[in-house]
Every structure is written in C-alpha cells, then in structure tokens.
C-alpha cells in the first residue's frame, strides 16, 4: 500500500469520451436501421465502404504519427508496430465509426461507390486527421466528405433508386421516378418554382417517403435519437433548438413574403416543407452539435447555431445549390475560433451577447425580406 500524493479534487464524474461516442452511436441506430430497411443493399454498401475507409484511415494515421524515434538500435517490425500502436485505443475506433455512420446517412442512395470512398477518405483525412485527430479538427469530417463527394461527382449520382417505399405500389406517393424532374430531391425541385412544395405531402415527408439521402428524411427516428441524446446529455440541446427555431422564424418571414407575391403558396405549407425536406433535423441533431467543432461557451454556441441557420436559409433561398445544411455547418465551424476569442467572448449571457444575436438575426432577416420582395431572380 502506497500513499499517493495528488492534487484536489480527488473524485470525478463517471461519464467519459467513450460513453459519449457510444451514446451518439446508439442515437444514430434507429435512423441507420430505417435506412437499411428503406434503401436495402445500397445503404449497406455505402455504410460498409464509409466506415471501413474511415476506421482504416485512422489506423494508418496512428501508425504513421507514432514512428519509433531513432536510438541507434535495430528494431524488428513487431517492436515498431507495438510502439506505434501503444496509444491506439477504443476512441480511435469509435471516433471514425461515428463519423462514418453520419457520413453514410447523409450520402444520397444513388451515389456511386467510388464517390462514397473518395468522399469518406477526404472527410476523415482532410477534415480530421491532418489537424491531429480526435479533438483537434476544425471541420465536421462527415460534412466535409459529403460535400467533397457532392461537388466532385454529383453528375454521376443515380437519381432513380429502388427503395422500400417505391417498390411497394400502395405506399408510393411520388411515383418511382416517372414524372419527377431530374433534380431528384424535394428541395432540388424548388429551383423550378415554389409550387413544387406540393409535390410531397407533409406527412409523407415526415415519414421519409421522398427521395433524398439515406438517413436525413426520417424525421421520427432522428427525433428519437435527439431525445436520447438530450436525456443522456451527450449533445447540447441549445444548439439544436437555436438552429431549428431561428431557421423556422426566418423561413416564416420568407413564407409570408413569398405567399404575398404568389397566392398559390400557403405560409405554413412552405414552412413545413422547408423544415422537413432536406437534412435540417439531421444536421441540427447530429452534425452541428459535434462538441469538437462547436464553441465551448453557451452564448457562443447559440451564436454559432444562429450563424449556421442564417447561412442555411440564404443558401436555400438564393443559392444555386438546393441544400444548404452541409455548407452552413462547415462555414459555422470556421467561425468557431472567432466566436470564442477570449477578448470578446463571455461565458455569461450579457446584454452585449444577446443584443449581438438579436441584431444579427434582425439584420439578416430584413436583408432576406428585401431580396425576396425586390430582387427579381426568385423563382415564383
């Protein structure tokens, strides 16, 4: 028995990094199962390719970064291997696994497998490993990989996918690629005019009966995961809430403007469509809340979510890409060092903090309203 000299405090909570990542995996599980059921083999292939790419990349990374220093002696490969993988632990598997599952769920079902592979490699290497691995990355690896694959290979994506909903005739509401325009996703159709929000009913969109990426359409399972994460406190609900609420408010104003210009469009139909089509909930629950890439103080987190919401709204309304969640997450990730710069960030809610948030929201909402009302490029 030895008396150990330590410094206070001597006790700590039970939760650790491993349990947090396991919680995220468990929260992702319902959505993943749903994706397997609906997209069957397509989903399985994408899943296997992305997680194996990511876990293997991390494995190679650990070996490359822990090379045995030169000490004059010759060492066998076994010794070198042992030295390099001394620090390899469960976190080196769970981290890429979480990224891989999220990446799987935001890839479109029609993505060719080489695109999946290249995107996964880009996401894990450029998005995470070059910064130093877990805890050092600036960008969300899944979002980076998905956007890279989308920018490089989107012309190769196959838009007519066999899915569970479309193979069973009774359940089909949109038709299996018959009359739908080439754009594919529900949001993509909007570039042809806002009347296309009536292509899918709100209930169908809520249940995921629309073409889209593997996981982001199933709002119910995403919400189940969100509740699990919030109960286990493995994700910050303030980020999710700020992002969704400020997005909904801005879209409400946009909806009012658009319906005043075009009386065929209902305000709340538009709002519901914008909330349910695309990856808003998935991004809010699983990607924006990634603790590594979000600020560490509460006002900063809310400001970060607000910035992401504003960018999402702008890309969706005025951008040439139909979906803005991925871009908005990456751009908000870039803002994190600025948001938490100690000279002006304050962990308390002060008048300065709150007025900055309210001011940003008001300024960008009014610009948005002005552009919709007086800009002539909005498709109506």
């Amino acid at each position: 028995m030895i008396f150990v000299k330590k410094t206070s405090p001597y006790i700590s909570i039970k939760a650790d990094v491993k349990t947090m990542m396991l919680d995220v995996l468990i929260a992702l599980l319902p959505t993943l199962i749903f994706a397997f059921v609906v997209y069957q083999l397509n989903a399985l292939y994408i899943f296997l390719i992305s997680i194996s790419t990511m876990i293997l990349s991390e494995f190679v990374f650990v070996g490359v970064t822990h090379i045995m220093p030169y000490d004059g002696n010759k060492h066998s490969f076994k010794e070198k291997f042992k030295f390099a993988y001394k620090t390899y632990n469960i976190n080196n598997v769970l981290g890429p696994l979480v990224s891989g599952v999220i990446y799987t769920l935001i890839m479109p079902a029609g993505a060719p497998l080489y695109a999946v592979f290249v995107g996964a490699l880009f996401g894990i290497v450029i998005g995470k490993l070059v910064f130093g691995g877990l805890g050092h990355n600036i960008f969300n690896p899944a979002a980076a990989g998905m956007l890279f694959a989308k920018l490089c290979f989107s012309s190769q994506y196959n838009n007519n996918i066999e899915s569970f909903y479309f193979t069973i005739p009774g359940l089909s509401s949109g038709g299996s690629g018959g009359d739908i325009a080439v754009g594919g996703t529900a949001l993509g159709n909007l570039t042809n005019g806002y009347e296309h929000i009536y292509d899918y009913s709100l209930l169908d969109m809520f249940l995921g009966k629309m073409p889209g990426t593997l996981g982001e359409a199933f709002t119910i399972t995403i919400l189940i995961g969100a509740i699990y994460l919030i109960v286990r406190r493995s994700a910050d609900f303030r980020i999710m809430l700020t992002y969704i609420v400020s997005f909904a408010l801005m879209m409400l104003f946009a909806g009012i403007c658009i319906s005043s210009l075009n009386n065929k469009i209902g305000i709340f139909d538009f709002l519901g469509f914008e909330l349910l089509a695309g990856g808003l909930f998935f991004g809010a629950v699983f990607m924006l809340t990634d603790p590594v890439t979000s600020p560490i103080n509460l006002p900063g987190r809310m400001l970060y979510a607000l910035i992401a919401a504003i960018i999402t709204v702008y890309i969706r309304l005025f951008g040439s890409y139909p979906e803005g969640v991925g871009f908005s997450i990456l751009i908000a990730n870039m803002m994190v060092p600025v948001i938490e710069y100690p000279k002006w960030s304050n962990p308390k809610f002060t008048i300065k903090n709150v007025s900055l948030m309210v001011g940003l929201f008001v300024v960008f909402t009014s610009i948005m309203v002005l552009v919709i009302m007086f800009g002539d490029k909005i498709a109506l």
Partner: protein
Amino acid sequence: MIAKVRHIVDKKRLMANLPTERYVDPKYVYIATNNARCDKSELYIKVGDHVNCFQVIGMRFAKYFVQPIHATVSGTFVGLEKHYHRNGKLIDFIKIENDFKDTFDSSVKKRSDEEIKKLTKEEMTEILKDCALVGLGGSSFPTYVKFQTNEKINVILINAIECEPYITSDQRIMREYPNRIINGILYALQAFQCNKAYICIKSKYKQLKEIYTEVLKPYPQIQLKCVGNFYPQGWEKAMIKSALHITLKDNELPMQKGIMNFNVSTIVGLYKAIKYNIPVVKRNITVTGDGIMYPKNFRVRVGTPVKELIQLCGGYKDPEKNKVIILGGPMMGASIPSDDCIITKTVTSVIILNDVENKEEQCIRCGSCVMSCPCHLQPVLIMNAVKAKDKERIKTLNPLKCIECGLCTYSCTSKIHVLDFVRKAKIFAKL
C-alpha cells in the same frame, strides 16, 4: 457529458446519523510550530518543562499579525518532531506527553452573563486575539481581524452548509451543541450591535431543520435559512446570494455590504473564547472514505495524530490498494503523502480513498468545465493558453478569479486535471 454540474456525489447520509465518538485523551499531542499563514515561530518553553492545558507555549509570526500557540493538554514538553501538516509540508511539531490530569492554566476564567453583557467589540477582539481563534472551516483566517472592521454590519450569516461531500463534522456540531452555537451567535450580535442572524443549512437536512425551528423559538433575532443543495453553496458569495439575494462583485468583501459570515465551528470557538477565555482545543472531525474499515465521527483533541484515529476506525480496508489521504474535503482538501499527519485546528475531516488511476484523454471541447465554473471562467481556454505559454491570453482570461472549487476537473469528460493548469495560470498571471 455536456451539462452544468452542480449536484455532485454526497455520501453523507450514513455519516450524519453516526453519533460522535469522543477521543480527547491521546498519549501524545503534537502542536504545529507554524502553519500556512505564519512561517516563523518562537517557543517559550524548554524540553522537560511541565505545561498546563491552554497555556501559551510560544508565538507564531505572520506578516501582519502574531498568533499565540496554546498547549492543548497538560503534561510534559518532550521535544520537537517532524510530521506532516495540513498544508502538505513536513514541519516541526511540539510534542507534549499527556499526564491525563487536565490542569488548567491561570488564564482560564468563567465570565458571568453580566460581565459578557458589558463587553464591547474592542474587548472581544482582544479576547479573540489572545485565544488565537481562526476560521475553522478551513480558511484559518484570524477571526479577530474580522472583528476589527469599521463597516456597519447589518446581518450575520452562519455557514453550516458544508457543501463538500463526505464531511459531516459541522452537522454533528449543529446537532450536539445547539446551546453553544446560539450563545456564540448572541455574542457576535452583541459585538456588532446588529439584530439579525441567519444560520444557513442545506435544504435537504430535514432533521436539522426540525431541531433548529424548535431550539430557535425563544430567539427571534436568529433565523434558519435553508439554501440550495448544490456545490459550491458553501462559498461565501454563493451563500450570500442564496440567503440574502445580494450579488457581490469581484474583489468586494461581504463586510462592505454589511454582511459578516462565520463558520459554525468558529462560532462554537467564539463562544468558548468569550465565555471561558479558552482557545480551541477540541474539534469535531469525520474520518471516512471508501478506504477505511468503519467510518466514524470523532470529537478529538487538537494535535491528535491521524494514525491513531485510523486504528480506532479499524484500519484500512483493502490494504493491497493504494490510498489517497485527504485532510479536508475531497474537492478542495489537501492530500498528504503519508498517514503520519496531525489534526490541527482547521482540519474538518480525514478522508481515505482508494486510488483510482484515471486515464487522461484528448479534450473534446464538451464545455462542461465552462458551464460548471461558478466564477464564470473558461478553464479549458486557460488550459490551452498555459500549454501554449501565452501570457497575454492568460491575463485576458483572468484566472485569479478562480476559487479552486474543483468543479472543472470533477466535470471533465476527458478526465483531464484542468484545475492543475488553472493553478499554473494563476502563477503566470501574478508574474
């Protein structure tokens, strides 16, 4: 876990109901020659001299004050011995062999109620100075300095919150000596000429609440305040905020707002000093933790070696496991590299824990430390600045506000000892 941690493990339920065991006559007592605030001392006695209980046997010198050293038993001065003090240093202790007669010094006198009624604040200050009363909650700040304030005091707060887990010594004092506490408060009220005092306890201590609503009935000027159950509720700013809804600014003393606060053990010491003119020679301590066989509450003589108390508790549990010995609470106490340490006036508890090696992982910026910090600091940013040796940024982050409550390390998901980095930052910021 991404959450504001306020409620930490408690582990008090069993200990609070254990009766206090008296162990007031050890064979030898050891009295510290210096302590955290006083670094020099002078002895008035020689080896072989007979000393009486409460006799002044020396003097400690600090920067701004002197503090008499009192013998806590009667007996023979054997010599100086090196032992561990509460502050973790190996210092000289005066070893006195107990003759078990408890002969009192001539300075002891019982003051009648009429005599006490006539005492002014200045006279009480002198008495407290002679009795070397210090803050017994762990601060060891001289109480007479608090009495010297010229501010008008409106309300006196008695801190009996004891927000640290495991410790129950204040609760036992509250249960066993309500009379001493009430009289002590009455003396303090008389000294500051104010007519309002609040005893602050955690709202979950139902039994204490029942006892004190009954006991305090004849004293309308003393009231019970039930405050929150969270940690660090016992921090004076948090206590004042919960009890009186007054928020103190940084660098603002409670006295400037007309508030005076004492620990409940200090109030018992104050009662003894005013009533009998004696210093603190006995105190309640808790010996507990998962590394000890039978946890117990003790009332011990100041100067008792910890080893004897551990033997009284049945020795160590699981002797093959490494142990951590803590004097004070598990969140803020000091760990001692050996069990060869001594109970001094300010030790509230001895906690023996089995050592758990926590593997440090990479910070994943969950932000729990930032949310939990009661001083609204950003411990993780301070840590990064210390790692980068960025003095400018450390100063911007203002680590000197830190009270070392330990919540940042307690709440850390990656098991990083954040508080150690904040301590380093405090040294950097003072440069």
